């Protein structure tokens, strides 16, 4: 047993469950119930890290989430957990814990030499230097970056899963200290649904860290019983280990529940976490208060601790934080801690009290116990190398009061309510002069209570808690008389000893009489000193937010929980301002850091984003298709066969369509039924072309513009009957187009009697294309007459295909004879397989989007999003003749704006490379003549470019400034490898310009 600082009795630890872990390789012994910090203290390890900037030795300061120093690295490899706080991390057997920011070792850290240079590295140092010579900045930066940072990121993907839960309640209680427990009980007794969350593994808050009694039993026992009673009620959810890290809009509370290892895990494994997303009606903020440190020189040495933390280690963990203590205080609370330490056998050498006449009950008790109490006194300086060795005391007038040897200095600078969540949510605060701290104002559905409301003392916390719980419940609609069976026993307001008047006296900046001893740290994590603040003010950075940004005060992983309340007072005093005029830097989520994985929740891996599937998806997969992402879909790009590349396969598929027959799964197209007496009128308004006179049974290609005149989407619309049209949209435009149409209908033209219904998912779409598609369709079995007169181009028929009822559209995106066969999705696979089977004698091949792209490019058909980019009009792509002159339509007026009529606009043309084998890279810019000059004016760019298997040459489409007027001109495309590719522009149609193949 090597726990020299472990007390023989007491503590909320399980002495029957010893454990050990390593810290920088050294074995540390502890018990179940210890935190890393308490075990380290019990083992006498005071030095646990190096500071962020100067690499000064640092130890444990607090016993909770507010500690600015105790950041360690846990675990290794993919399970590594950087920057975990030792004061809140439960110790577990077999853990590997390492210090951060020290090299080669914690004791002998090379970078600590920086401390010597500290006088030359004040706040704002970097802005004033490292500018010369400019070339060297990258080098300087590399050095800076290496020195900065804290822990190391994991080395592999996170093996853990994170859970995510939505919850609702009437009252959310933050904190399960006396105030929170009383609040939860009061609210639950009124019938409210309550969630009680506390970041600690056990309920009780400050009760765990004191010897106080509640209702005649030890505080911790009362808390445990009260929490158990609450948990037994079906209306109450008690969540230990759960931090409320953010309060967002509409008081949405985000909480994260830590999950520890599971059976069979390596010890201390963090098993992800569960995020709770709670929508409460009311919130009771019972998050307690944080003690403020005090300034003196070397106040950062290991062994300097908050007075309340010394008591916490003593009572909760039975770990003596030192062997001989001195306290430095502004109020009576330190006396309680000092008495408790002395009681536990840790001698208290002295209490330096800044008050002239500390005469309360507790000081009297201390004196009676023989503790030396120095009034109107302060700690001037802490002495020691890697931990406290002594403190130098003096009177406030500067006269020395001796050097006292000790290894523990307890600081008691008063308490600041933990109002972070309240302030995050925009809640107001008031300056409480008695407390010298900001206290929350009840607002926005947040009811503060206990320490969080500025109350000191358990009795007050219980009282306020019960009141807040009752008023929160009432505000949520629950009153005392409506109460169903109350959870648990015990009185609503348990009894406890009222705290004595603490007699607080502010002490911010040590009086000048004490001399300018340094360094005095205001923010331990960020190594911000009192002198830094002075300098910062001198340089004119006076607003508290400026001070923060210039010095990085409060910007560390602790977010200045200790530093900020201290800094407000210090800055006020240095500037002669009221603290309320100084204010505090803005509070933001997260209260304590939260893993990105926890926020992602279940939305990771296969569940990160829905992958949508067509009815033929499994077939494509089995057929060895290569896929491409199109929005949330994965569409077959091509179906390579043995030894084929995607490119080879697409070429083969193209030829199959041009010469024989191919089958494409185009189920992803959007399909909207436009239904009602005014359907035609509606289409007239949203499309550039006309619809009312389209006869039932016929199809027409349509173009839709934004009000700015730019092409929004295109596609074929068929008239199903007098009052019904079916509109096809592009795959990526499906949702957007429906939303766009619905919006106009509802907000602008409610008088139109039209209903829009998306039928995209109901109808699968199989595009059968190629000269032998008619024979294939016939072979598959259909009752539709297929001959040219009976079923001409741009018409549709209803009937059966392969035994399934179908809508068949004779429309074509390939330029070949083509049937787009729509069948109910649940029978589509059957039809797909039948067509392939029956098409085999005709040489059918399934084809993918790559072949589809090539085929349409050969015909010069544009793809919205490829030829267009939100800045392209129908005029630009040569579709002027589609625009109706007889009617208005969305976007029409925009087309006559001067910039849209300019002759030098980019217009769609075809390109042929001089070398027919040379496929011009897509996206390549086009210029008039090669040149090394930069900038070199650009004429346009290549929008689509392929090798055309049908033509045996490269073809491309491009947008070229003034292109339509100068067809045949020579241009040069710049390849990414800086070669120039000579091309000539042409009409954007390469194959079957007369469209003869469509009308067969």
């Amino acid at each position, binding site marked *: 047993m090597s726990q020299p600082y472990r007390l023989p009795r007491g503590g909320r630890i399980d002495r029957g469950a010893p454990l050990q872990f390593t810290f920088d390789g050294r074995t540390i012994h502890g018990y179940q119930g210890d935190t890393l910090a308490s075990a380290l203290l019990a083992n006498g390890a005071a030095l646990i890290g190096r500071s962020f900037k100067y690499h000064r030795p640092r130890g444990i300061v607090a016993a909770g989430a507010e500690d600015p120093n105790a950041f360690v690295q846990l675990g290794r490899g993919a399970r590594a957990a950087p920057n975990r706080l030792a004061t809140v991390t439960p110790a577990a057997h077999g853990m590997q814990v390492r210090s951060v920011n020290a090299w080669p070792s914690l004791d002998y850290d090379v970078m600590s030499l920086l401390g010597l240079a500290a006088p030359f590295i*004040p706040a704002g140092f970097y802005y004033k230097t490292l500018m010369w010579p400019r070339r060297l900045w990258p080098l300087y930066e590399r050095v800076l970056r290496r020195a900065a940072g804290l822990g190391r*990121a*994991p080395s592999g993907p996170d093996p853990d899963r994170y859970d995510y839960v939505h919850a609702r309640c009437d009252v959310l209680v933050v904190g399960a200290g006396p105030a929170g427990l009383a609040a939860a009980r009061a609210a639950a007794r009124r019938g409210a649904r309550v969630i009680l969350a506390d970041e600690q593994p056990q309920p009780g808050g400050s009760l765990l860290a004191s010897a106080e009694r509640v209702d005649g039993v030890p505080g911790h026992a009362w808390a445990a019983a009260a929490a158990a009673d609450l948990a037994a009620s079906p209306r109450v959810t008690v969540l230990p280990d759960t931090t409320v890290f953010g309060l967002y809009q509409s008081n949405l509370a985000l909480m994260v529940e830590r999950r520890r290892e599971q059976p069979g895990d390596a010890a201390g494994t963090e098993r992800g976490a569960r995020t709770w997303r709670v929508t409460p009606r009311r919130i009771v903020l019972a998050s307690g208060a944080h003690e403020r440190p005090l300034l003196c020189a070397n106040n950062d040495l290991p062994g300097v601790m908050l007075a309340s933390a010394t008591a916490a280690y003593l009572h909760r963990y039975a770990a003596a934080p030192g062997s001989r203590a001195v306290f430095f205080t502004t109020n009576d609370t330190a006396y309680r801690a000092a008495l408790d330490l002395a009681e536990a056998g840790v001698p208290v050498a002295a209490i330096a009290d800044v008050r002239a006449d500390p005469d309360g009950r507790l000081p009297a008790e201390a004196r009676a116990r023989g503790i030396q109490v120095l009034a109107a006194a302060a700690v001037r300086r802490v002495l020691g190398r890697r931990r406290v060795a002594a403190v130098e005391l003096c009177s406030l007038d500067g006269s020395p009061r001796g050097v006292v040897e000790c290894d523990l200095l307890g600081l008691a600078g008063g308490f600041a309510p933990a109002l972070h969540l309240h302030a995050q949510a925009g809640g107001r605060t008031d300056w409480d002069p008695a407390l010298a701290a900001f206290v929350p104002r009840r607002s926005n559905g947040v009811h503060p209570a206990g320490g969080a409301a500025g109350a000191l003392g358990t009795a007050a916390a219980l009282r306020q808690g019960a009141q807040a719980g009752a008023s929160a419940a009432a505000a949520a609609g629950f009153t005392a008389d409506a109460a169903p069976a109350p959870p648990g026993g015990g009185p609503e307001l348990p009894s406890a000893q009222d705290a004595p008047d603490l007699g607080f006296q502010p002490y911010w900046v040590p009086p000048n009489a004490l001399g300018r001893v340094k360094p005095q740290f205001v923010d331990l994590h960020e190594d911000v000193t009192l002198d830094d603040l002075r300098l910062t003010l001198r340089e004119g950075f006076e607003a508290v937010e400026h001070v923060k940004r210039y010095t990085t005060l409060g910007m560390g992983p602790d977010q200045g929980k200790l530093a900020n309340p201290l800094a407000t007072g210090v800055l006020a005093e240095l500037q002669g301002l009221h603290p309320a005029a100084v204010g505090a830097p803005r509070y933001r989520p997260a209260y304590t850091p*939260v893993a990105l994985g926890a926020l992602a929740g279940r939305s990771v891996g296969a569940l990160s984003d829905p992958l949508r599937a067509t009815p033929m998806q499994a077939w494509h997969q089995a057929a060895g298709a290569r896929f491409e992402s199109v929005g949330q879909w994965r569409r077959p790009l091509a179906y390579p066969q043995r030894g084929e590349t995607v490119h080879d396969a697409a070429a083969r598929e193209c030829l199959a369509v041009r010469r024989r027959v191919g089958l494409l799964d185009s189920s992803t197209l959007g399909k909207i039924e436009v239904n009602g007496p005014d359907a035609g009128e509606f289409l007239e308004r949203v499309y550039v072309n006309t619809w009312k006179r389209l006869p039932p049974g016929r199809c027409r290609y349509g173009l839709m513009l934004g009000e700015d005149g730019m092409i929004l989407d295109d596609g074929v619309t068929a008239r199903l009957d007098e009052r019904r049209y079916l509109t096809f949209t592009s795959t990526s435009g499906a949702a957007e187009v429906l939303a766009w149409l619905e919006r106009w209908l509802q907000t602008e033209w409610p008088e139109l009697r039209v209903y829009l219904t998306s039928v995209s998912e109901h109808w699968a779409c199989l595009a059968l294309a190629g000269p032998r598609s008619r024979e294939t369709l016939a072979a598959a079995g259909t009752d539709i007459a297929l001959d040219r007169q009976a079923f001409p181009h741009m018409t549709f028929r209803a009937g059966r295909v392969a035994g399934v009822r179908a809508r068949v559209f004779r429309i074509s995106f390939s330029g070949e004879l083509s049937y787009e066969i729509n069948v109910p999705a649940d029978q589509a696979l059957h039809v797909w397989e039948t067509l392939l089977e029956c098409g085999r004698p005709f040489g059918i091949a399934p084809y993918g989007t790559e072949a589809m792209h090539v085929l349409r490019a050969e015909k010069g058909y544009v793809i919205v999003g*490829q030829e267009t980019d939100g800045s392209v009009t129908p005029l630009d792509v040569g579709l002027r003749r589609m625009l109706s002159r007889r009617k208005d339509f969305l976007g029409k007026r925009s087309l006559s704006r001067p910039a849209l009529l300019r002759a030098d606009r980019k217009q769609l043309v075809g390109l042929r490379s001089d070398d027919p084998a040379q496929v011009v*890279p897509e996206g390549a810019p086009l210029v008039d003549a090669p040149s090394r000059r*930069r900038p070199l004016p650009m004429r346009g760019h290549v929008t689509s470019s392929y090798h055309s298997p049908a033509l045996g040459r490269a073809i491309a489409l491009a947008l070229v400034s003034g292109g339509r007027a100068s067809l045949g001109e020579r241009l040069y495309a710049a390849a*990414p490898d800086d070669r120039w590719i000579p091309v000539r522009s042409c009409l954007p149609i390469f194959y079957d310009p007369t469209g003869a193949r469509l009308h067969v």
Partner: protein
Amino acid sequence: MQRYSLPHLIRRGLRGQRGWTRAWRKAAPKPSYDVVIVGGGGHGLATAYYLAKLHGVRNVAVLERGWLGGGNVGRNTAIVRSNYLWDASAHIYEFSLQLWEGLSRELNYNVMFSQRGVLNLGHSAHDMHGLARRVGANKLNGIDAELLSTEQIARLVPILDTSAAARYPILGGTLQRRGGVARHDAVAWGYARAADALGVDIVEGCEVTGIRAAAGRVAALETTRGEIRAGKVGLVVAGNASVLAAMAGLRLPIQSHPLQALVTEPLKPVLDPVVMSSAVHVYVSQTDRGELVLGAGIDAPTSYDLRGSFRVIEHTLAATVELFPIFSRVRMLRQWAGTVDVCPDASPIIGPTPMEGLFVNCGWGTGGFKATPGSGWVFAHTLAHGQPHPLNAPFGLDRFAAGALIDEHGAAAVAH
């Protein structure tokens, strides 16, 4: 102005850092100025600096309603690049990038401009198409741009999930090596200090509440610190552009949206270049202090609220963890928002308004930090001459009536 230099620093260090003086004077407003700049953000301060430095206009005030630099300049993810698609944008952002390259020297203030490269990822054929187009255009405009393969990206940023099975497979990307990040606050402070040294009055805690015109010409500003007469007025108030314009009876084509960002705890270096994926709304870099800085997409509703909706953050983080699986255990430290001024074409407005003497510089939206030096430079020119410089001539308010939009988001380019 105290010039910062090594000997100077050592002297101050030896004297216990006593001799420092204010970085800029705490100016009280005078009754009248030749030019008043409204807005003490990066752009406003840069404008004032170049007015004084290059155009000899020194009777200038910058009015800031809060503390200087508390707007978007102090809350942005600090990405600097110039690889924009359209010529007009490319020219102004590249000009700005060149100013960045000499900025620390120019201001005698280290703005820590760190050219560690900006990598844009492509996850689909459509993305790759857009990226290739942009690289081609950038090269002709003299902007450094490289198209990278998946393998090259895996070497450059090994912690990215470059496997083919990833939810957002990385098919390739573009790299602008001269891009990078800068220390955002320092930019505001550096310009303020340098402008102050040239005589510019920087007035903090002075909110403009009204704009008075006389005979169709701007005459004076009503402020919380009294009325201030002005020969010319430049509104450079980012997310508040519409509010100020309304004081002059104008409407702008601007919508103000919250844009959120967050930092993680500091880590030892794991990420060198800036990585951006516009398809999934993620951009991330690691600062010199070691935190990861991540940005999200804008919140859809217009708002002046500095918080934003949590679901936007959740979405961004889910995508971030997909791209960088090792970041899952890294923890979010702090999260915030700014109010960005978004134009329909995602390009800024820099030029005159229908009210004579009143000029605007706004609409930089989610990506104006990188433009700070260039924007200030051209706006100073515009104010001094009453005419836009050729670099900002395409960015006038008149482009909306003419239809000459410079559509940077439509054109597969990305913001930030």
